[in-house]
């Protein structure tokens, strides 16, 4: 809509999805593409609800959806770190059928996805066994209406398995696999372990400098943020 308001695109045909009720359906781990941030803020799994609460403003959260966030495929999308951290899939429908694409196969670059031209995002599929603990946080320059400088989710299972999903630090959302592997085997991480975890997270990012922040700051903030989120998970 912003692109048409600004005259950047002039689509010849438009398909209105606002009243397609099926897209608003949310059953268990299957979240319809048109489920709004507002609904996720209230009823979503903890870290996804935390992320939803930081999106835009009340007006934006009433209109913006998880499917729209995916379709935009911004590196800074606030829903993405959670989907990456729990290995969610994106359900796509087309005249030839339905397929589920793992998040890592879905995002292919800055605002680029593996969707075909005739495909529509119908739902997000979360795994049945979500980690026992998961926490989201983001860094931005103000409280509301802010695009993330860095956003992150850390999950931790009772058996120690840990995952890290990051946004705004690479062309697509990423996982910090080395940091995950290092910390997953440690039952009660020491201060030294936490610092090493943060260092590995930072090392795995490939941020850019732009008008919102610098490469160095984003890299540093990613480590600090994930260390903090891990500590919250360990409480």
């Amino acid at each position, binding site marked *: 809509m912003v692109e*048409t*308001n600004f005259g950047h695109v002039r689509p010849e045909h438009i398909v209105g999805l606002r009243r397609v009720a099926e897209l608003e359906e949310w059953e268990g781990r299957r979240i319809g593409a048109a489920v709004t941030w507002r609904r996720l803020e209230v009823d979503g799994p903890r870290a996804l609800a935390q992320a939803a609460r930081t999106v835009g403003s009340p007006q934006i959260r009433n209109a913006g959806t998880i499917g729209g966030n995916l379709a935009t495929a911004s590196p800074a999308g606030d829903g993405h770190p959670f989907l990456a951290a729990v290995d969610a899939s994106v359900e796509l429908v087309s005249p030839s059928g339905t397929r589920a694409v793992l998040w890592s196969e879905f995002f292919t670059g800055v605002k680029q996805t593996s969707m075909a031209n005739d495909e529509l995002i119908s739902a997000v599929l979360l795994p049945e066994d979500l980690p026992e603990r998961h926490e989201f946080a983001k860094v931005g320059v103000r409280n509301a209406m802010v695009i993330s400088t860095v956003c992150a989710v850390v999950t931790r299972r009772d058996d120690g398995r840990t995952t890290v999903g990051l946004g705004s630090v690479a062309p697509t959302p990423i996982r910090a696999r080395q940091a995950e592997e290092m910390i997953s085997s440690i039952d009660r991480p020491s201060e030294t372990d936490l610092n090493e975890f943060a260092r590995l997270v930072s090392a795995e990012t490939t941020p850019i400098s732009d008008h919102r922040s610098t490469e160095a700051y984003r890299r540093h903030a990613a480590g600090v943020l994930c260390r903090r989120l891990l500590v919250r998970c360990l409480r």
Partner: protein
Amino acid sequence: MIIAFTLNGKPVTARVLTPVSLLDVLRDQLELSGSKNACDQGECGSCSIVLDGAVVCSCLVMAADVEGSEVTTVEGVASGGVLNAVQEAMHAAGAVQCGFCTPGIVVAATDLFETNPTPSRTEIKEALAGNICRCTGYGAIVRALEEITGEVS
């Protein structure tokens, strides 16, 4: 295409030929200029309306998509020429700066009080997070809204 929807309680139609926003249709075709256009990208909240029960930025709503919907604009919050409690409170407190963002704030605040009649200061601020257009003068607005007790509309 011709779209039909309910605007401030009355049935209306509009002719939509291009992918225009609901805001443009409200202002240019239906001649309700209370909803303002400052940013055209959902940033300022000056165009806030209530669409099927939810506050949204009308600049981000595709006009063709409101077929069959219920829309309330700032022109629809007062009834029979009587200001609602939010309008009264802001008027009494002089809670405006340049005033351009005021219609959106009235709509967002009215929605807040309808869903939460006794909001805290924090809840008031959070409800206006999409309307704070970064000039200044918000202290008076928040203080005015804190004075409201009882039914808003």
